[in-house]
């Protein structure tokens, strides 16, 4: 019989705030983090050059959260690592695992990340190409490599088990959580710290994203008529996963279960979503969890708010759930925290599990009215919708056709 994988700690950082408590307060109040820096007092920060809606992290608040930690050996920290460390510290402390012997060996660290340390790379290349200087900071490579957060987290908690980054664009942290679950099921490790981090609000990354032609110039309006695209956010979310017996043996408080994981590849297009691949991933996750699609669930959509993604995701949900679809409650939290790319799946999973625990579905923001192609049972009230669902289905569908779906179960 396979080992059950339970969740014992969450941590998150985004434009909504530092920590799950602050995040939930904003979510529940329907106060999203998307804003324009043009509306803010001018600063000298490079982010000032980002001319459009986005959801920025309060970097100083992250530094404050980490103030008691000795980070000296970690060298220069890109925001990518700073966010991951902040979220991981919260998750590990919430799980009561700080300094616990279990952290040393039979533990994995998997960090989803879409694009590495953009700020560090931007600063280095600005020296070369704009200022025509011959040298860049000696820590440019170690600080910007995609696996830097994984290494930094291992140093933070003193973990010597398997530790690496997982990259699948916007599905990265769903793959990280799902693969961590499999490592525990297989008995390779007893504990995993898994999630994702992304810090892509830099001028270079911003221009590149804009050139894709999928960015909204107003805000993120998932599944709404007149939606105009996605909005970039940044941040990190980390989860502590354990085998049930390990959690029980140490008397840990169990927050829920990671019960299922489906993962597919469209093998079709680098940007356009594919109905078949998405539908297959959702079905696979249900099957893996042993949960029928008819069982009422909180469905946390990928819900980017782009013209192309939302109708394909809606069609996949209709295909999987059919006449049972109205029994489910559908949320789209990117409307509050923006698209965290490699961190977004973990962020959405953590918010979804918190929603199950509280019996409240956070509102979809920015909705202007029904798009007949995306007619879903959305949680639209300005305040959270009461729910009594024991199951979370959390969707992530990445550029390049890489799909990952997680199924979580509320703690009994």
């Amino acid at each position, binding site marked *: 019989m396979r080992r059950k994988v339970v969740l014992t700690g969450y941590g998150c950082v985004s434009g909504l705030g530092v920590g799950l408590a602050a995040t939930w307060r904003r979510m529940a109040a329907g106060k999203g983090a998307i804003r324009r820096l043009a509306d803010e007092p001018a600063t000298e920060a490079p982010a000032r050059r980002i001319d459009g809606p986005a959801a920025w992290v309060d970097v100083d608040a992250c530094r404050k959260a980490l103030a008691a930690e000795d*980070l*000296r050996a970690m*060298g*220069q920290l890109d925001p990518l690592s700073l966010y991951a460390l902040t979220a991981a510290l919260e998750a590990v402390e919430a799980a009561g695992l700080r300094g616990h012997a279990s952290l040393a060996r039979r533990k994995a660290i998997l960090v989803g990340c879409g694009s590495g340390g953009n700020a560090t790379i931007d600063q280095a290349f600005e020296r070369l190409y704009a200022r025509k200087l011959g*040298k860049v*900071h*000696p*820590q440019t490579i*170690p600080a910007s490599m995609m696996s830097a957060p994984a290494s930094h987290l291992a140093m933070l908690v003193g973990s010597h088990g398997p530790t690496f980054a997982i990259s699948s664009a916007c599905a990265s942290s769903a793959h990280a959580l799902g693969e961590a679950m499999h490592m525990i099921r297989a008995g390779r490790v007893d504990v995993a710290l898994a999630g994702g981090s992304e810090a892509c609000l830099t001028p270079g990354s911003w221009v590149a994203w804009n050139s894709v032609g999928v960015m909204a110039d107003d805000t993120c309006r998932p599944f709404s008529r007149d939606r105009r695209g996605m909005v970039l956010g940044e941040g990190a979310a980390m989860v502590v996963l354990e085998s049930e017996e390990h959690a029980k043996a140490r008397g840990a408080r169990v927050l829920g279960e990671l019960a299922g994981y489906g993962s597919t590849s469209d093998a079709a297009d680098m940007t356009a979503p594919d109905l078949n691949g998405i539908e297959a991933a959702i079905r696979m996750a249900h099957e893996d969890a042993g949960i029928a699609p008819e069982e009422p669930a909180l469905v946390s959509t990928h819900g980017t708010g782009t013209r192309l993604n939302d109708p394909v995701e809606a069609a996949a949900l209709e295909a999987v759930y059919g006449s049972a679809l109205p029994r489910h409650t559908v949320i789209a939290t990117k409307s509050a925290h923006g698209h965290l790319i490699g961190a977004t799946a973990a962020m959405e999973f953590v918010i979804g599990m918190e929603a199950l625990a509280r019996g409240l579905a956070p509102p979809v923001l920015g909705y202007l009215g029904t798009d007949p192609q995306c007619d879903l049972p959305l949680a639209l009230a300005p305040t959270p919708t009461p729910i009594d669902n024991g199951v979370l289905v959390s969707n992530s569908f990445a550029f390049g056709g890489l799909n990952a779906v997680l199924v979580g179960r509320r703690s009994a």
Partner: protein
Amino acid sequence: MTVSNEAILAVIAEESGLDAAALRPDATFEQLDIGSLDVASTLFAIEDKFGVEIDPDQLNPASTISDFVDLVRQLLPS
């Protein structure tokens, strides 16, 4: 440009994460647990800040703080 020893020490402190008071003149980088990457980062920051170019071969883990300050001072225009 007039650069004080304190200004040079402040850069070493910033890049190494140590308190400036801990940077005793006779202590080596090795003794202070300042690794090679931190030394490289310090050289980079000094070059950027004071407009000098430092040959990294003139420093090694056994170099003292005072050796480093002297080296930078020699390179600064008087």
